[in-house]
């Protein structure tokens, strides 16, 4: 029983990692209706920027804010420079650009910051809590994820800008007709997604250690979490992220063994999506034709 409880708590701690990255995926999806495969690599790059600033003697939270701002600008720049020229091309073209972006950003990170594993500082109390099952950092970063979740929710629900962004993603033509600057909405979406990714990277790095491939596996799980909860629902995606963390731990320990735990998590997700294609908390979109 004790072991069961420990697995659940460890699962929630790991799930918090997935949840924070899932939020970035929701952001880019809400804004562009695409899922950016390079989200993880971009977040890793941002995390290295934060580490560089911290090592240069900046206070942690100042480095945090600066990194978020820099990442926002980089995100906007990527949209303006790389995505804009192919804005009207087919989805496959976009996928090609995303994959190219994965390779470029990942190799660039390794080239600039090298491949050795680096520790990353945490702003929270870094001791183990609850007998080491969860650390002060994991609690703190979960809180940060929830704050970001709140902000994303409020942004899309209650601001005109958020509404305009959603409109630009759902129906660019109509949005343009009512005066929304669709191009800039997309750029803004990329910027915000990159900023949220940077926050996720900074929160994840103290737990998993920083190296260029840090997000490789995490993005996969985060994607699964986002789909499980509903990729158009920030709250659902966060719950989905936590759920994937717990499911993989319990499944790995008690049902299929560690070798198949990723498989089990994905099978469950496919099962859910068969019944509810929009995810557990996703909104079913009906469009009149």
């Amino acid at each position, binding site marked *: 029983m004790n072991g069961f409880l420990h697995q659940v708590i460890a699962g929630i701690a790991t799930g918090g990692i997935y949840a924070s990255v899932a939020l970035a995926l929701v952001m880019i999806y809400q804004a562009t209706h695409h899922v950016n495969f390079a989200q993880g690599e971009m977040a890793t790059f941002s995390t290295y920027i934060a580490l560089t600033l911290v090592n240069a003697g900046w206070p942690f939270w100042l480095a945090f804010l600066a990194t978020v701002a820099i990442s926002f600008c980089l995100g906007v720049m990527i949209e303006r420079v790389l995505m804009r020229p192919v804005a009207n091309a087919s989805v496959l073209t976009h996928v090609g650009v995303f994959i190219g972006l994965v390779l470029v950003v990942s190799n660039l990170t390794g080239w600039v910051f090298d491949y050795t594993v680096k520790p990353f500082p945490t702003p929270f109390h870094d001791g183990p809590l609850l007998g080491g099952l969860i650390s002060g950092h994991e609690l703190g970063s979960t809180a940060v994820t929830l704050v970001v979740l709140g902000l994303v929710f409020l942004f899309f629900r209650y601001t005109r800008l958020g509404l305009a962004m959603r409109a630009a993603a759902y129906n660019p033509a109509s949005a343009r007709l009512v005066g929304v600057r669709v191009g800039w909405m997309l750029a803004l979406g990329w910027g915000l997604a990159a900023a949220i990714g940077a926050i996720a990277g900074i929160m994840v790095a103290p737990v*998993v250690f920083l190296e260029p491939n840090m997000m490789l596996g995490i993005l996969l799980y985060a994607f699964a979490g986002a789909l499980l909860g509903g990729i158009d629902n920030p709250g659902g995606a966060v719950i989905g992220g936590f759920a994937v963390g717990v499911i993989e731990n319990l499944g*790995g320990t008690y049902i299929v063994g560690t070798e198949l735990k990723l498989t089990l998590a994905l099978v469950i997700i496919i099962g859910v999506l068969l019944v509810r294609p929009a995810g557990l908390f996703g909104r079913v979109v009906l469009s009149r034709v």
Partner: protein
Amino acid sequence: MLNRRSLLASGAALLAAPSIVKAQTVVGVTSEEIKIGSIMPYSGPASAYGAIGRLQQAFFKGVNEAGGISGRRINFLSLDDGYQPPKTVEQTRRLVEQDRVAFLFNTLGTPGNTAIQRYVNQRKVPHLFLATGADKWADPQNFPWTIGYQPSYRTEAQIFTKYMLENDRNAKLGILYQNDDFGKDYIAGVRDVLGARFDAVVKTVSYEVTDATIDSQVVQLHGSGVDCLLTAATPKFAAQTIRKVHDIGWRPKMHFLTDVSISVGSVMNPAGPEKGVGILTAAYLKEPTDPTWQADPGMQEWRAWMVKHMPDADQTDGNFVYSYGVSKCLMQVLTQCNGDFSRENVMKQATSLNNVAIPTLINGITVGTSASNFHPIRKMQLAKWDGKTWERFGGLIEGANV
């Protein structure tokens, strides 16, 4: 003028050409030089290992300046594969078919060597002293042209298990391993020593390289009641393991750590140096930063060589110690060849090394091979992490005979 007769004649000449080359002399060897090929990750994620190749280039240059070997100079071709197996295959074909090297030496990386092993064995090209710790290079029945160098992961696991049983006959061992060839070598090594008792003594838990953390696995092992731990994980996951084991208050009686992940900079310090105190690993090379080797003649020879041939290189980098040793080992093979550098003889001499002393191996560890023993180095010494450095202790332990 192109007519049928001239076409036939030139065609026949083309067909005959390869056999002329073959009949001419031993492949890769002329009266002036011997061509040796190597493949290193000079670029890409494993480029830190490029140091090994850079030392070898300087090493064979030094050999040539001192008069070469058996009257021939060494033409050392070391190519870059970026640690990508498809690239390794391409570069190997180039070395074997275009440059026509006599043999391959110290090609680096388990995935790359796996990709070329079948090809070089079909071509009967000696594939000597690979720079990887996988155990599968010792398979003379199926791959008689491939031989490793350093103690394999499997040998290391045998040594850990022997030590564990010596100190506690009733120990229960948990193994946390990466679910691939690397991790499974450790399971095989533990099984070699425990035999039928394996299932009763050992609990194994795997992780995938795509896993975000190994927290769940550590919690699972801790809960299963094992009192010793063997961590066969790559650096990032090893650092996570050391921290998690400490944080959940688990104090294994013995915690063995693969020598892949003993880097102070990228494992012990990130995990928190105080969290790993007491962890055990095994070593076979002299560590350049270890003060006890300061006056050691072998290391003095290495330092003097470094100062003369690579004055700008970082002497704290263990890759240079490794590379110097394996290059010396190859020179022993070439000396034993006694002027006959045919592929058959090179392979024969590489597998008849009789307790060759290498200056950079821990004193007492020697290189020994035979037609049936393709494990050149089989002994190691244990070392313990004291919070600052790895401190060697006890005598040399030899791998099990399997």
